[in-house]
């Protein structure tokens, strides 16, 4: 089935430098593997506010207390390997919605 709209996925960490780079790479790979087109945006967690109107999902290694109009998935599993398959599935489920 053809996707109607490319999903915008925010990938955020504290600095937008280290851990979001790893998570970004992992999601990119995953999307390719499942032939899903996705608009990945790597940012600092403090920049999420600018994307509330456009984003479909936030995947982050940083803690966030704020409420957003889109789901938030914790991405620590991509760094430690613990629970990685679960996290991947969660992201995949959101992308396929």
């Amino acid at each position, binding site marked *: 089935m053809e996707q109607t709209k490319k999903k915008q996925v925010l990938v955020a960490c504290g600095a937008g*430098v*280290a851990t979001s*780079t*790893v998570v970004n790479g992992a999601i990119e790979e995953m999307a390719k593997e499942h032939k899903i087109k996705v608009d990945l945006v790597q940012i600092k967690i403090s920049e999420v506010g600018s994307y509330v109107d456009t984003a479909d999902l936030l995947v982050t*290694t940083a*803690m966030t207390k704020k409420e957003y109009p889109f789901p938030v998935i914790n991405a*620590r599993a991509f*760094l*430690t390997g*613990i629970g990685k398959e679960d996290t991947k599935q969660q992201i995949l489920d959101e992308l396929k919605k």
Partner: protein
Amino acid sequence: MTKLFFDESVILMEVNGETKEAVLEEMGNNLIQKGLVKDSFVKAVIAREKEFATGLPTAGVAVAIPHTDVEHVNTKTISVGILKKPVAFGIMGEEEETVNVELVFMLAMDETHSQLALLQKLMEIFQNEETLKYLMKETDATRIKETIEQQIDFTTL
């Protein structure tokens, strides 16, 4: 892109600090003395750790990957600290939970988006219980250097 600096002098075999701040100071000051980072690095890395914790519970030995913005860095490096005693670090992405960290990889990165391969390989170490346990046991800095070099394979970066 500058070449990554990595030798025995950034591998600290006995980090004495008993708080995360003391550990970050000890490791950061070593990098300042070597001119790899600017004087502002220690303060920045401590502040960043407070705001965005970097402790990671792993299958073997808990690690932390403190880092901060590129502007505090002169030369890209990874400093490895083996803690004498486990020290509580906040867990990445959690509000209050902490983890007793025994191994610290302090990242001094000089570019924002270009270190994917390096970081991916570093994370592979965290997912390898055997390597983590070996790093804790090993008493020879040169062997630690060689092990990490092998795992990260600097020649491909």
